[in-house]
Every structure is written in structure tokens, then in C-alpha cells.
């Protein structure tokens, strides 16, 4: 008989910080350079070189800590994590072990039961390692090449409390975390380029049991979806082990995306002893109140705050506010439009609808959109003045989006001005009434839907340029007077 289990998940997220130079030297952090172009004696770990901490890294770590509701520790220090690997030039990684820069924070996520708080145990700073390129497949390669461009790129590791209870919550946590880090601009969180990486610890326990079950650590998940799927798989695997009377073994397992399963990598006994000790080359880091306050002052509005403000200030539905604040550039775009056109809901409808659709279709970032926010505002004004119909507006919008041209210019060039001349419209309406006697009869019999059909016919005749409000009125007047 199957028992009820509670799932316990904790996540460790590594985020590359978007500083221009590396954490302990002046080398560039730019992605995509020729192999080993961005290296120097320091990040290559040549004998005798010493690390010097990039203050910007500390700024960003503090900013992340503040955005994630952490305590910023006045005293923190750097330690060496020792292990041999060809991509690690010094054969130790400079990290923070027992005194991290930030601790005790939280993230709020939306769940079916409402808002849930996931604790953040700590955030610490460390350096990234390089990258191995194997000649051929990894098990058959005759040689491996090392690219040290990534060596020394600053990372923060964000360690959650074991507060996550479902794989879906894990995904929501990651989505929210990514959104916050992007908002404050400390990381571009690009999972494909490896600037955001996630490991997960997961265990299960019989419902009501206080002690945690034995956990496994999952690695090699390259998307949020993969994290969710790996956790789902692992939870089921652990349940099966327990139900068959077995014991979960503490181990590290790797997610195989193509096989859709986790595979054992190494057991606890085989786990490395990293021999952490304080790095003698870096004095302890002292962060005073002024430093924290300076960063706090530069901290931008966070997604949840922005969402609440959008509801309050623009009287938008929660849903709209959520969509519009999904990313900072989108929220900024929206606000730039609203600055020029006060009907926020109308702006919201266009952005949530055609704008996001075209963005997706054209595979663009918001920063790449040619259409100026003011032009969307002016298009809406053209609609208000009756110059164009909402239908025409769709055409104008698409043209603006693709070319960046002014709406007036598009209307003029394409002859899209709305027909608001009553006599001209009457002529067309009469023609339509004549051609559709049964629909006219339906209208007379109170079938309101039929009037829509007739309006549509007028639109067809005018290639969408007729003023729909006027057409509606004229149609009703004419039919009533028949």
C-alpha cells in the first residue's frame, strides 16, 4: 500500500555576475571570445600571482542579498576549496565557506495555496572555473583542450532552505529568482550560456515525520523545465525505493535529459574532501553600513513591488500587472507608453496582446523593438479621434512594430484613414441591407448577433476602414426605419 510522503527540496543556484571584469583580475568577462583570449597570469594561476577582489562583485552580491531579503554580513571571508581538475588553474577555487557575505533571506512564490515564502540560507561569492573541450566524445577523446576565459568570472551561489515541497514550487522559485536577479541587473541569467546553473537536493519523508529523509543531490539540469522533471523523476524513484523496503543512499546523481532519468554519479563515501581553509592571500572582507546603504539606494524596484504598484497606480487587474512586470524592460516599455497615453488598460491590452505576440514571432528582445513607446500612444490617440478603427489599428500596429515608422505616416501611406463621413457610410449600409435581407429580418426579430454580421459586411466593403461605431448606429437607424 502506498504511503503519503512529503517532499523536501533545497536548491543551490550559481549565477554569473554581470561585471565587466573578473573577480580577482582585470580580464574581461565577455562571452564568446576566442579561447584563452581573456586570460592573464592571475586567472591562469601562474606561480606567484595573487588575487585582488573586484569591489563591483561585492556591490552585486550585496544587491542580490538585499533583493532577496538577506542580512548583509559586516564580516565575511574567502576560503579555498581544494580539488584537482584541469579547468581549475590553481587547483583550488576561491569561495566563501563559513562566513558568506549574505545570509537569512527569502523569496516569495505564488502557489495554489497562495503566496509562500522560501527561505534563503546564504549567498556567497566565488570564482568560476574554465571549460574543457574534448576532441571527440568525452569517453573516446584522445586529447582535451582547456579554455580559461571563464576562469575567474564572478559567481554568487544562492542556497535555499529546504522549504520547497514540490517540483513545481522549485520551478516557481527559480523563475522568481531569475526574475529578481535580472531586474536588479546583477546577472543576465542566461542558462544556455551557463550564467545560471542549478543543483537540487531532494529527499522524501512519510507525512508527519519530523526528521528529514536521506537526500540525493541532482546535477546537470540545463533548464528550469529540466529541474522540474529531474525532481519529479527523483521523487518517484525515491518513493519506489522506500516502498520496496529499500533505503535511499546519500549520493550525487546526474540528470540525463534524453533518457529522462537521474543516474548515480558518486556516493557520499566517494565525495571529495575539499579541505576548506581561509585563503591567506585575501584579508577578511569588511562591509560597513554605509556600503550597504549606498547599494540599497541604488536598488531598483523589485518585480513584486512593481506589480503591486501597477495595480494601485494604473488600476490594472492583477493578471495584467503580473504579465507587464514579468521583465523590467517590458515594465519600462509599458510605463513609457502610459506616460504618453493615460488609459493604462488600453495600453496593457495592446502590450499583452499584439506586442508580446509579435515579440515572440519575431524572436526579439524588448530592447530590439523598433517601435517607440510614444508611437503606440499616438496610435491609440488616432483611434480615439476616430481616424482609424480598431481593426485598422491592428494593421498599423504591426507595421509600426516591424518598421518603427510613425503611425500617422503609416495611415497616410497605406490610405488607412477611417471613413467617418455619414453620407458615404449610409450609401454602403443601404447596399449591405439590400444584399442581406435575412440578416436584416433577424435583427428586426431581436437577434442582436445579426447586427454584428452586418457591421462585418460593411467593414468588408470598406476594407475595414469604416468607423464601426457610426456603422452600428446607421445600421440600427436604417433597419428601424424600414
Amino acid at each position, binding site marked *: 500500500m502506498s504511503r503519503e510522503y512529503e517532499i523536501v527540496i533545497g536548491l543551490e543556484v550559481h549565477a554569473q555576475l554581470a561585471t565587466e571584469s573578473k573577480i580577482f583580475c582585470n580580464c574581461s568577462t565577455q562571452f564568446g571570445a576566442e579561447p584563452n583570449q581573456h586570460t592573464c*597570469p592571475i586567472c*591562469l*594561476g*601562474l*606561480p*606567484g*600571482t*595573487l*588575487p*585582488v*577582489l573586484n569591489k563591483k562583485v561585492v556591490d552585486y552580491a550585496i544587491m542580490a542579498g538585499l533583493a532577496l531579503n538577506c542580512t548583509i554580513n559586516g564580516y565575511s571571508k574567502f576560503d*579555498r576549496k*581544494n580539488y*584537482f581538475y*584541469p579547468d581549475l*588553474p*590553481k*587547483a*583550488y577555487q576561491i569561495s566563501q565557506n563559513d562566513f558568506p557575505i549574505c545570509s537569512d533571506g527569502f523569496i516569495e512564490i505564488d502557489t495554489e495555496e497562495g503566496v509562500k515564502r522560501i527561505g534563503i540560507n546564504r549567498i556567497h561569492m566565488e570564482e568560476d572555473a574554465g571549460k574543457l573541450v574534448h576532441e571527440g566524445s568525452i569517453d573516446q577523446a584522445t586529447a*582535451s583542450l*582547456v579554455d580559461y576565459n571563464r576562469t575567474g568570472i564572478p559567481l554568487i551561489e544562492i542556497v535555499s532552505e529546504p522549504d520547497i515541497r514540490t517540483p513545481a514550487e522549485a520551478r516557481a522559485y527559480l523563475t522568481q529568482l531569475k526574475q529578481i536577479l535580472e531586474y536588479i541587473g546583477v546577472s543576465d541569467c542566461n542558462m544556455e550560456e551557463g550564467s545560471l546553473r542549478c543543483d537540487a537536493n531532494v529527499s522524501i519523508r512519510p507525512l508527519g515525520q519530523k526528521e528529514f529523509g536521506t537526500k540525493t543531490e541532482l546535477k546537470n539540469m540545463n533548464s528550469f523545465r529540466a529541474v522540474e522533471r529531474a525532481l519529479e523523476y527523483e521523487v518517484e524513484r525515491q518513493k519506489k525505493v522506500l516502498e520496496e523496503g529499500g533505503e535511499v543512499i546519500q549520493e550525487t546523481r546526474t540528470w540525463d535529459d534524453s533518457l529522462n532519468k537521474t543516474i548515480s554519479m558518486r556516493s557520499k563515501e566517494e565525495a571529495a*574532501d575539499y*579541505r*576548506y*581553509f581561509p585563503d*591567506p*592571500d*585575501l*584579508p577578511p572582507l569588511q562591509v560597513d553600513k554605509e556600503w550597504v546603504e549606498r547599494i540599497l539606494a541604488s536598488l531598483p524596484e523589485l518585480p513584486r513591488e512593481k506589480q503591486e504598484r501597477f495595480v494601485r497606480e494604473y488600476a490594472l487587474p492583477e493578471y495584467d500587472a503580473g504579465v507587464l512586470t514579468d521583465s523590467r524592460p517590458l515594465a519600462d516599455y509599458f510605463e513609457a507608453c502610459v506616460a504618453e497615453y493615460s488609459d493604462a488598460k488600453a495600453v496593457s491590452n495592446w502590450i499583452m496582446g499584439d506586442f508580446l505576440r509579435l515579440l515572440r514571432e519575431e524572436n526579439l528582445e524588448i530592447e530590439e523593438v523598433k517601435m517607440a513607446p510614444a508611437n503606440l500612444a499616438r496610435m491609440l490617440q488616432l483611434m480615439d479621434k476616430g481616424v482609424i478603427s480598431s481593426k485598422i489599428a491592428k494593421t498599423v500596429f504591426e507595421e509600426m512594430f516591424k518598421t518603427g515608422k510613425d503611425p500617422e505616416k503609416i495611415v497616410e501611406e497605406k490610405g488607412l484613414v477611417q471613413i467617418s463621413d455619414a453620407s458615404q457610410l449610409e450609401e454602403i449600409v443601404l447596399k449591405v441591407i439590400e444584399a442581406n435581407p435575412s440578416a436584416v429580418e433577424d435583427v428586426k426579430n431581436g437577434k442582436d448577433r445579426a447586427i454584428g454580421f452586418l457591421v462585418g459586411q460593411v467593414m468588408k466593403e470598406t476594407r475595414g476602414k469604416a468607423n464601426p461605431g457610426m456603422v452600428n448606429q446607421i445600421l440600427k437607424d436604417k433597419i428601424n426605419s424600414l
Partner: protein
Amino acid sequence: MDLCDLSIHELKAQLEKEEITVEEVLDSFLQRIDAVEDKVKAYVTVTGTEARERIRAELEGSLAGIPLAVKDNISTEGIRTTCSSKMLENYIPPYNATVVDKLNEAGAVLLGKTNLDEFAMGGSSESSYFHETRNPWNLEYVPGGSSGGSAAAVAAGEAAAALGTDTGGSIRQPAAFCGLVGLKPTYGTVSRYGLMAYAGSMDQIGPITRDVEDAALLLNVISGYDPKDSTSVKREELDYTAFLQEDLAGMKVALPREYLDLVSNPEIKESVLAAFKKMEAEGAKVEEVSLPHLKYAAAVYYILATGEASSNMACYDGVRYGFRSKEAANVAEMFGNTRSEGFGEEVKRRILFGTYVLSANSYEAYYVKAQKVRTLLIKEFEDIFKNYDLIITPTTGDTAFKVGTVTEPLESYKMDTFTVPVNLTGIPAISLPCGFSSKNLPIGIQIMGPQFGDGKIIQAAYSLEKILKLGNKRPELEVAQ
């Protein structure tokens, strides 16, 4: 006496008066190297050609035209830097250590890179992969270590002065064994950038010179805040030559009795006590004090230093530079074989020891405990310096020993008790000649000062040097003509 037997300040004076030329000076040193290097073996690499090339330009600065040697664990751009290890036998660094840049800016002429115990781990220079360096005072004896090559070169007239490095006594002990002045500055005074780390929390570069004045001159050049070294200290730059004053009046000197108890050679005790008498005659006040934790110093030092060393030596894995074993079927084997074949026995011993003390199961019992005792020692020294200007001790418990006679690691580690407290506490100390044993081997006396009391110890050493009047005694090497 040849030009190569003169001190820096003597050479400077003659050069400034244009009594001699830079070429003559360099020739004298290179001739001496030719004549005695076969026996002394102070150098790993002699850079005579580069030196001749360098003096073709007009040299300016406080060390203009002065031929110096640099220990071979200090990075020199374009000149191989080996740490006296097979691991780095052919390693040519692409950058200069900060001190090397500073020597160059001061106009000094590099004569070569001096031999050391492999990766500065040792006190005799016998563990060099290349060769043993001999003590110019008696070629059957070791010059000390790890900066034995630097000390031997200066003692033999193969360099006017040299840079050494001192993690546990590696400047002071060879200076004492070779009848020279060796200064270990306050931790953070001299940039470590380019010093190939043995134990970064204690490593410090310093001068090995013929006299105290030269030590002050060299310290002026190499000291100063360096933004490339986060442990270097930002403070007002001092002119250390301003401390070259003969004045011991009112100086309060502490003599820790535990040090005297450790001395194995009575001649050393005699010599040091005689020096104290002379200091008292000049108005210094000497009192015995106690350093109860001294007995743990060597143990604490070897735990902390080897812990750091095990991590610092990890970069020598054969991947990027230096020696790589040809026998390897995979990466793990490449690491293992490279390190097995590339490191000498003493380095391996310390890596293993250090790896052990940092391991999860022993970290608390060893490393953390040792850090606590280190803190106690710092406190103990601070307490003494509340009441005393200086602490003076013998530099070593015995004079230099014969090559090949100290084979037990523990025996050699214990000898370091005299010098390691200075590194553990970060304070400055200088060793200067105090006399000679009946075997005509030099005896050193060590003057320690409080943190940043480098000027103070220079003043005391300068004064003591004047009253001891040992003169310009030089070793008599049979020079092949």
C-alpha cells in the same frame, strides 16, 4: 679586497665619486662567479649576458649599477624561475614580481637567480633539485636555507646583496650561517606579488646583505604598498636609512629564557650573552622574560605552513606549465605521475602533511587548534612589546652543520623554533653576525621588534654592529685564478 667584496653603500660611494665604473663593478662580480661558483654553487641561473646588456644603458636610481642576486622563487620575466624544482626546471615566467620591478627601477643589475631548498621548504639548501649550495666559510658545511643560495652568493662575493624569502626563518638562518645580515620585514611591508608561495600567510621577501646599512638601503627599494597584493599594507613610506643611528641608550631589551634553553652549542650562548653585555654597556637594559608557548611554535608553524603549502603546490599539475609526466593514460594519472616525478621528497612530505591537517577529520584538531595557538603567540609577543622595545635571541641553536648530516625531518623542523615565531606573529626581525665559533663558523644574533618596528630593529642592529666591531671579515675561499 676586490670590488665584489664591497658592500652596496661602499660601491655606491665609489661609483658616485666616479672612482670606479659600473662595468668594472660588474666585471669584478662576474669574475668572482667564474672563480668560485663551481665550489659554492650559489646560483641556479647566472644572467651574466643579460647583466652586461643591461649596463649598456645609463642606469639611474638608488641602486644604479649595483649587482644583486634574487632567490629563484621570485618571478622574473623572461628568466627561468625554478624554485629549485624539477617541476619548474624550464618555466620562464611572463611577468616580474613587484620587487623585481622595483629593483629594476632603482637601477640594480641582476646577476642571477639563487639556489634554494625546493620550493623554499628546508633549512640547508640541500633539497634543491639542481645541486647543494655550500657555505663559503667552509665548503663542507651547508649555507643554511631556504635562501642558502642568496646567502652563499653574498658571502662569497658573487653578489653585492641578494633578495631572500622568509617563511619560517629562511632569510635569517642562512644569514646567520653565512655571517651576513638578513632582514625579515613586518608581514605586509614588501609585496608578495610574484613570490611563488610556500605559505602566503607568513611568506615575506627581504634582503640578505653584508651589513645593516645595506639592508636599510634595499628595504627602502623593495618595501611599499602594492595594489597587486591584498595583504600588503598601506602606510606612510619610511626612509629606513634614517634609522641608521648608533643609539642604544634607554633601549629596553627582552631576552626570552626559553630561547637560551634551546641553544645546543654553548659557544652561541656565550657569544650572544657577550653581545648583551656590550649592549648594556651602551645603555640598553636587558631583562629575561618568558615565552611559555614558544615550545609549540614549531609544531604550530608546521601545521599551518604545510596546510597552506599543500594548497599552494596543487597548481603544479602538469596542465599549463612546468614538468608533465609522459607516463599517463588519463588525467588523474597525469596529475599523479607529474607530481610524483616532479616534486622532491621534502616537498611531498609537506604536501602530505598539509593535506592531512586540512582534511575534514583532522582540521579541527590540527589546523584550527594551531590557529588558536598562533593567536596566543601573537598575544604573548604583544604583551612583551608593551614593556620592551626589542626581543633579542640567538638566530639559531647551533652554527651551520655539515652537508648531509641532518637527515631526520623532525630534527631539522625543531631547529626552526628560533625563527618561526616571527613569521607566526608577523613581526619584523633581523639577524646579524655576533661572532665566530671555534671552527670559524659565523654565529648570528636575532633582533625582533613589534609590528612595523622595522626601523627600530634596524637602529638596534646598526648600533650592535658598530659595538661588536666584527669588521669586514670575509670567508677565505680558494679562488681559482
